[in-house]
């Protein structure tokens, strides 16, 4: 048997790109890592493998805890972790969803080509930066009172539609049509609402960004056609989440669960994995609050996208409808969802809380939960790369249901810490190099953010996507390359 020795943890090769850490001690199931040896070498010395092992201690974890090809060390659950916990006998864990509930990515198409944008990059990046709030304390596109916040939490993008920030078609191209059922605004604390009310329609900072991109490659023309993607086309990618409202919601429930379910917590190797038993009041409350925060994040990305349409109208002096600025799809990559999956070779089905933290749902063609527009080809998956490398559009692969509870990677995955990045890179230099060498125009609130997000701090997104494609969990459809990028 081929093994990989990662600093004290031995992984056994199940088949190409599938590695398993066998059950031992209090592990309830084995852990699996989906990676090439090159990707494994990047995580062998940090805590990624220990964290995915820890995740297998959660009650009700089904079959195995899985680390996606872009996985890296996080807190509690690794980033890139997928854990399916039994929704009847298992539990739900806020820390395994992450602080930024429904952090995610959406891509908007246009009918512009790269030639039409060349020469306008500076005006475009300046105008986007001036009109789309980013960074800390930058406010939001709308400021909401208490009633409005509750409406947003309950209704999601439907609220945006009613208030002129969306069109009907936007809803049809978003998971759950932009409205999560079971959202309960009353389960979101006043503190969380206070943080969220002046952040609706804002990017935040860290790795969040808005990027204008050009399509450089279409690998699968049939699926590319279905997604409306062609070479040289301009698209817009938006990456952000539920802002302070989501962060506070996670912390509120982490603390409540710590106080009320101490017995369960004592069985877990990391306090950050604190979980509420399925069926308990807190499990129900958290699920209602998390669903509400999911709606908030969808509205956040929707407002930013709609504002982007207006910026393009001014820069290119045409209506957005004329530029066919339509939502391709919106994916969440920090989320737990009740889903029904076959859990063994006999095809027995269970209802599971599928936790995806830094992982993207990737349902294959034919799955009833893929929106009608894409059901014949599979769900679009958007994988953002760093600001100096490409991003990818994949489609849910036919092996995803068997291997990963219908999931794949969510990005390039970080390699280097933020503190180290700031020692190695200077924001101004990174910005200048990107412009001079690659014609990528970057604008940020803080030079330090550019240094922390420099292309060199990320793993090779090409390798992550190659492994996803080879495994058949997310198949390559198209690749894009940055034109301009704004961040916090």
């Amino acid at each position, binding site marked *: 048997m081929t093994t990989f020795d990662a600093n004290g943890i031995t992984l056994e090769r199940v088949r190409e790109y599938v590695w398993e850490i066998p059950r031992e001690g209090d592990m309830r199931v084995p852990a699996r890592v989906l990676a090439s040896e090159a990707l494994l070498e990047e995580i062998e010395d940090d805590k990624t493998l220990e964290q995915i092992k820890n995740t297998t201690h959660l009650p009700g974890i089904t079959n195995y805890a899985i680390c996606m090809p872009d996985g890296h060390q996080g807190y509690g659950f690794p980033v890139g972790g997928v854990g399916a916990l039994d929704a009847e006998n298992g539990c739900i864990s806020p820390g395994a969803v992450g602080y930024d509930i429904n952090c995610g990515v959406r891509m908007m198409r246009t009918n512009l080509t790269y030639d039409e944008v060349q020469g306008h990059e500076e005006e475009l990046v300046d105008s986007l930066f001036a009109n789309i709030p980013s*960074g*800390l304390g930058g406010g939001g596109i709308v400021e909401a009172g208490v009633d409005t916040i509750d409406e947003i939490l309950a209704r999601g993008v439907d609220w945006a539609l009613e208030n002129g920030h969306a069109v009907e078609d936007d809803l049809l191209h978003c998971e759950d049509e932009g409205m999560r059922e079971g959202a309960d605004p009353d389960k979101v604390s006043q503190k969380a609402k206070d*943080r969220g009310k002046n952040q609706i329609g804002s990017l935040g900072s*860290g790795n969040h960004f808005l990027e204008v991109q050009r399509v450089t490659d279409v690998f699968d023309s049939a699926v590319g056609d279905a997604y409306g993607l062609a070479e040289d086309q301009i698209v817009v990618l938006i990456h952000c989440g539920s802002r302070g409202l989501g962060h506070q919601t996670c912390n509120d429930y982490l603390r409540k669960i710590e106080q009320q379910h101490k017995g369960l917590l004592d069985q877990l190797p990391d306090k950050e994995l604190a979980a509420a038993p399925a069926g308990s009041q807190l499990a129900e409350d958290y699920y209602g609050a998390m669903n509400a925060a999911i709606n908030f994040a969808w509205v956040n990305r929707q407002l930013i996208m709609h504002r982007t349409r207006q910026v393009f109208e001014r820069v290119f002096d045409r209506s957005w409808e004329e530029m066919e600025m339509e939502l391709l799809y919106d994916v969440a990559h920090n989320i737990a969802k009740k889903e029904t999956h076959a859990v063994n070779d006999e095809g027995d089905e269970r209802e599971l809380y599928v936790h995806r933290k830094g992982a993207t749902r990737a349902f294959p063609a034919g799955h009833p939960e893929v929106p009608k527009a894409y059901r014949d080809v599979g769900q679009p998956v958007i994988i953002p790369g760093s600001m100096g490398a490409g991003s990818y559009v994949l489609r849910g692969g036919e092996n995803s249901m068997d291997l990963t509870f219908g999931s794949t990677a969510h990005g390039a995955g970080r390699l280097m*810490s933020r503190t180290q990045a700031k020692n190695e890179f200077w924001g101004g230099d990174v910005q200048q190099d990107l412009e001079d060498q690659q014609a990528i125009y970057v604008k940020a609130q803080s030079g330090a953010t550019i240094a922390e997000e420099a292309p060199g701090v990320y793993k090779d997104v090409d390798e992550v996507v190659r492994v996803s494609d080879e495994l058949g969990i997310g198949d390559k459809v198209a690749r894009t390359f940055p034109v301009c990028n704004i961040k916090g």
Partner: protein
Amino acid sequence: MGFELRDHTADVAVSATGDSLEATFAAVADGLAAASCDEIPAGVGERFSLSVTAENREALLFDYLDELVYLRDVRAELPVGNRVESIETTGSDDGPGHGDEPVEWRLEASARGVPLAEIDAREVKAVTYSEMRLERTGDGEWEAYVVFDV
């Protein structure tokens, strides 16, 4: 005594020491401010006070940092120059109180709020329990390690 920012792949970790529990908590809070902003201007902003209660010492540290992140967002100010005036408990110093009364830990603190509009600050999303350590290292001295989600 004071804090250091430590390497962490995706996030930021703060390691802090102090000659009292109060000084150690304040040093972690200053680490949080440093992780948010490289150049904190002197003399800008008004001081404000805050108080936090929790059921044990680690939870108190967690809730204190959580409160600072919350206040940052709702006041639109970065809390810097943190001072922890007092940490008191109804129980014994090392564990649960005697009798049936629940233990309560209480902290009184203050900070100077630098308006976010006046600085280049980055968002620290939240405090985490992951790898959190709070240990007595010597005579009244404490050491803390906290990972923040960025």
